């Protein structure tokens, strides 16, 4: 039957009409697809009812199957599984769904399942699964760790994976892939026995625009073995970008400094719009911005709030509520507000510092102007003057519609090991059955039988051991089912399900009681009692650290240390890098008519005077001698990760010609090699040093791949169950099981280097850390380019930010500031 003739369709249509709405074509298309039991991907920007595409489709399907009593039927078991990456999204989506359900007079229940769900609520869900379950990937796996889980999914009709573009390209995406392979296989074996058409499950990804939408769909639907269809909302969405230009251009730019000085320029913007989101790249800087804003506009106190991942959850929820009701003028936030929920009152977005990629910039811009048809308005505020070039590049990217891809992850054995333990806890697994399922996912379709055997062996025998003196105990084989029977091991595993690995975090509490938030252990361990720091917008004095809790009191100190959280330093994307080179190309030849570039002319003039502004087909290398030693600066504009790898390779190539040692520093624009002796790079050898030949061997030879693998290994070891992070609140009991990732890495490196997880660490280094493909492409590009060698007599505007970044590591922020000022004044003499 055609969709338009069905009762379900007409019920929904009528409900919409009563509300004065009519469906967008992409919504109808999705309903049609779900009606005919197809799967696919819905591509729509936020604020255009993407939720209603899949959700209403699921309702229509149910109404059509129960045309007479759809309003009466309750306890229908799980119908729609809604996977979402963010806890914060769940509540709002749930609320919107409940509203519709009640207006339609239906009896469906909406349940939320994530880390915040209470045990009582879970028990209730266990007894009576709601029709709709909104769940995070982690909680979905926890569901699979429950005895009797197959029962839950028997009635399931539709799976929606919201914000799939966010999950794809991360290990959480792999978790979704694995869970889907299990659920789909359960359904298929069921439909073989019942052979009912209604058992055909519909799987839909909901995604914002990314460069590889077709692949995104393929990845999700891989276990279904279906192509599916992509449904695109063809909605005109205009994005207006304005740059905030400083009155005076700093010729020696450095990150973090300029931004704050521009605070007075954004106060009028905040006053003008209903609500403004101020996106800051790091939690540390967001704390500073919050303080500075209060300083600059004291009358806005109470109407400005702070929102980031380390802030107490209740406070965050309060901020989100206040955003909905337009009670706030401005929220200073980090990526914590990147996703999902529509805050309708948000009229303006300000991005401070480079967003590092076009997609993220557009996503943040999209947080404003939620009414269909309304433009998204975003201001770009540079944290150092060179970033204005990025603003110009971003505008160009939007004009040309160039958006990054998200590369799906491949062969994540750490996630697989975790998943298999999860299944081993609940029902146990049959290796042949699960092998087929795992192979059906995109992530593991290239997995060999040998690798699978190694995975199973690792679980059952624990790798290399001294046979008779070994107590290894994890997964046992009982009647050909792989099971975990030890309750302690099972409990520990449950607590560790997940793929987001954070640094050791400590709770921060007032000594008089009251929770403030969490903070990285390494930061707080550097403070002495009595010193002050800033968290959640408050100045706090450290009293003592006791049992994994930081006890503080309110501080009256004028100066306090702002923690710099280490997470989430994103590299510049390849697309943005390319556009950036083109912008410099344009700027190097004088006036362009582009305001961001023209305002930078004094900086470019100084750069040309001392060195050169490279054209798009040129690679600039600067060699400078200072009292620190001999510096070699290279500017490929390929993002910090590629630069880190290239620095390692270059230093290894140079040191093979002559014994010499280096240290590295890098930012998104270029990198630095520093040595205590002259660096032998000149026009006789420079093309050879940047040759793509023998790249693979050189990567392996460069010492850094071990260092990088060590860093990657930390996450892998935690996800793969090699590091026990302790029980919450009772870490002492498990002290004898504690170890650091670097220790485990050292031991594996020496005693079992071929271990699956070690190999994965190196592969991740190649694929993600070094972005090997991108590195190779860069070297091929350089081969076609002209390499410009300059020998400036002092630091140039281009290399200055790299130099500053490398100093940052060893100095506190105030001392750093003093030193940089001194350097700036010396250079400008």
């Amino acid at each position: 039957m055609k969709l338009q003739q069905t009762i379900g369709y007409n019920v929904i249509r009528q409900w919409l009409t009563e509300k004065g709405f009519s469906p967008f074509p992409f919504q109808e298309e999705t309903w049609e697809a779900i009606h005919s039991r197809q799967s696919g991907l819905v591509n729509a920007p936020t604020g255009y009812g993407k939720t209603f595409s899949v959700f209403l489709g699921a309702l229509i399907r149910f109404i059509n199957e129960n045309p007479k009593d759809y309003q009466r039927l309750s306890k229908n078991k799980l119908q729609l599984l809604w996977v979402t990456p963010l806890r914060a999204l769940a509540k709002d989506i749930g609320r919107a769904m409940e509203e519709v359900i009640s207006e339609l007079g239906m009896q469906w229940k909406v349940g939320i399942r994530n880390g915040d769900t209470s045990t009582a609520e879970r028990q209730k869900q266990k007894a009576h699964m709601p029709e709709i379950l909104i769940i995070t990937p982690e909680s979905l796996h926890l569901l699979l760790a429950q005895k009797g889980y197959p029962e839950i999914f028997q009635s399931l009709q539709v799976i929606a994976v919201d914000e799939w573009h966010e999950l794809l390209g991360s290990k959480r995406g792999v978790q979704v892939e694995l869970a889907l392979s299990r659920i789909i296989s359960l359904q298929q074996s069921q439909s073989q026995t019942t052979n009912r058409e209604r058992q055909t499950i519909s799987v839909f990804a909901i995604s914002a625009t990314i460069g590889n939408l077709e692949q995104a769909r393929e990845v999700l639907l891989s276990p279904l073995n279906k192509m599916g269809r992509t449904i695109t909302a063809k909605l005109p969405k205009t994005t207006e970008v304005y740059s905030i230009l400083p009155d005076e251009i700093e010729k020696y730019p450095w990150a973090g400094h300029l931004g704050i000085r521009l605070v007075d320029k954004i106060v009028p913007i905040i006053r003008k719009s209903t609500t403004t989101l101020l996106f800051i790249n790091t939690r540390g800087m967001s704390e500073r911005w919050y303080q500075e804003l209060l300083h600059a506009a004291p009358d806005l106190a109470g109407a400005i709030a702070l929102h980031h991942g380390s802030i107490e959850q209740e406070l965050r929820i309060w901020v989100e509520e206040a955003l909905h009701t337009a009670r706030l003028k401005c929220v200073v936030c980090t990526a914590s507000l990147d996703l999902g929920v529509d805050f309708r009152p948000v009229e303006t977005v300000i991005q401070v510092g480079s967003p590092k990629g076009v997609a993220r910039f557009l996503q943040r811009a999209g947080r404003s102007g939620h009414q269909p048809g309304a433009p998204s308005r975003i201001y770009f505020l540079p944290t150092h003057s060179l970033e204005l070039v990025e603003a110009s590049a971003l505008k160009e990217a939007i004009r040309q519609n160039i958006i990054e891809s998200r590369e799906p992850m491949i062969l994540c054995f750490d996630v697989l090991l975790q998943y298999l333990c999860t299944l081993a806890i609940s029902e146990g697994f049959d290796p042949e059955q699960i092998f087929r399922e795992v192979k059906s996912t995109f992530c593991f379709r290239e997995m060999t039988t040998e690798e699978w055997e190694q995975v199973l062996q690792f679980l059952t025998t624990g790798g290399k051991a001294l046979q008779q003196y070994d107590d290894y105990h994890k997964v046992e084989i009982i009647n050909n089912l792989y099971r975990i029977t030890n309750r302690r091991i099972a409990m520990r595993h449950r607590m560790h399900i997940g793929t987001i690995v954070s640094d050791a975090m400590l709770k921060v509490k007032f000594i008089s009681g009251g929770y403030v938030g969490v903070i990285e252990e390494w930061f707080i361990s550097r403070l002495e009692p009595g010193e002050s720091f800033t968290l959640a917008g408050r100045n706090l004095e450290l009293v003592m650290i006791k049992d994994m809790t930081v006890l503080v009191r309110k501080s009256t100190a004028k100066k306090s240390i702002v923690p710099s959280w280490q997470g989430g330093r994103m590299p510049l994307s390849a697309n943005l890098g390319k556009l950036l080179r083109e912008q410099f190309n344009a700027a190097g030849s004088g006036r362009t008519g582009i305001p961001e570039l023209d305002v930078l002319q004094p900086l470019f003039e100084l750069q040309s005077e001392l060195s050169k502004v490279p054209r798009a087909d040129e690679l600039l290398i600067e060699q400078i001698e200072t009292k620190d030693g001999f510096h070699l600066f290279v500017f490929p504009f390929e993002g910090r990760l590629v630069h880190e790898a290239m620095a390692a390779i270059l230093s290894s190539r140079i040191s093979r010609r002559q014994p010499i040692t280096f240290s590295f520093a890098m930012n998104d624009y270029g990198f630095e090699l520093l040595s205590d002796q002259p660096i032998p790079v000149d026009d006789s050898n420079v093309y050879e040093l940047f040759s793509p030949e023998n790249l693979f061997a050189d990567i392996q030879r460069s010492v850094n791949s071990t260092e990088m693998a060590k860093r990657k290994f930390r996450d892998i070891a935690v996800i793969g169950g090699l590091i026990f992070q302790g029980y919450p609140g009772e870490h002492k009991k498990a002290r004898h099981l504690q170890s650091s990732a670097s220790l485990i890495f050292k031991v594996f490196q020496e005693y079992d280097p071929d271990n699956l997880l070690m190999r994965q660490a190196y592969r991740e280094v190649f694929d993600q850390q070094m972005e090997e493909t991108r590195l190779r492409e860069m070297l091929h590009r350089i081969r076609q380019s002209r390499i410009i060698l300059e020998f400036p007599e002092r630091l140039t505007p281009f290399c200055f930010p790299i130099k500053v970044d490398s100093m940052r590591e060893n100095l506190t922020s105030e001392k750093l500031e003093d030193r940089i000022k001194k350097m700036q004044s010396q250079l400008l003499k």
Partner: protein
Amino acid sequence: MQAPISFTVSGQQLWLSPMKAIFWESRRFLIVSDLHFGKTGHFRKSGIAVPQHVYRNDLQRLFSLVQYFQPSGIIIVGDFFHSAANREADLFAKWRNDHSGIGIRLVKGNHDILPIEWYRENNIDLHDGILRDGPFCFTHEWTPDLSQANEQYIFSGHIHPGVRISGQGRQSLRLPCFYFDQNHAILPAFGDFTGLAIIEPSPEARVFVLAEQQIISLQ
């Protein structure tokens, strides 16, 4: 492997081995610390699959040291066994049986929680707190108070000392070390499955770094 290097403390001839042990010549004692035997086993029992060969290597190293120095006894300044008993303890017991002539004296460390009987069965002398022998005294964890109250030179362990060596151009390496201060010494952890704590050596101290089976005098 580099030969042991000579070092004198309180007029006593010591030999520092790159195998993370000290040989006290006049008493013919081998001094070691923080062996953390059974740690791999403890992890593996809990389902954490660290390679057990680390432990086999530690045992072999101890065996080689005994072969080389032919000591009359071994003094362990604490953290001999990592945790509760496991099968790796049995492997040690087997080894112990084959070397029953050597006296083993253990100054208990915070990790040494095995039942008293186990030590007795394996012929290990237990000492709580402090063990004195001639000009020396041995304890697990050194504190300044301890040196105040003691004339003798103290050998200790516990912290798994290491130093960070920075080269020019901001390079750095972390390496385990022997640490000899005016009135006390800290030994490196013998066990390979152990971490490092970076110490700030006092100006008077002598520091010997262990790097790739070599001993290098740092200061």
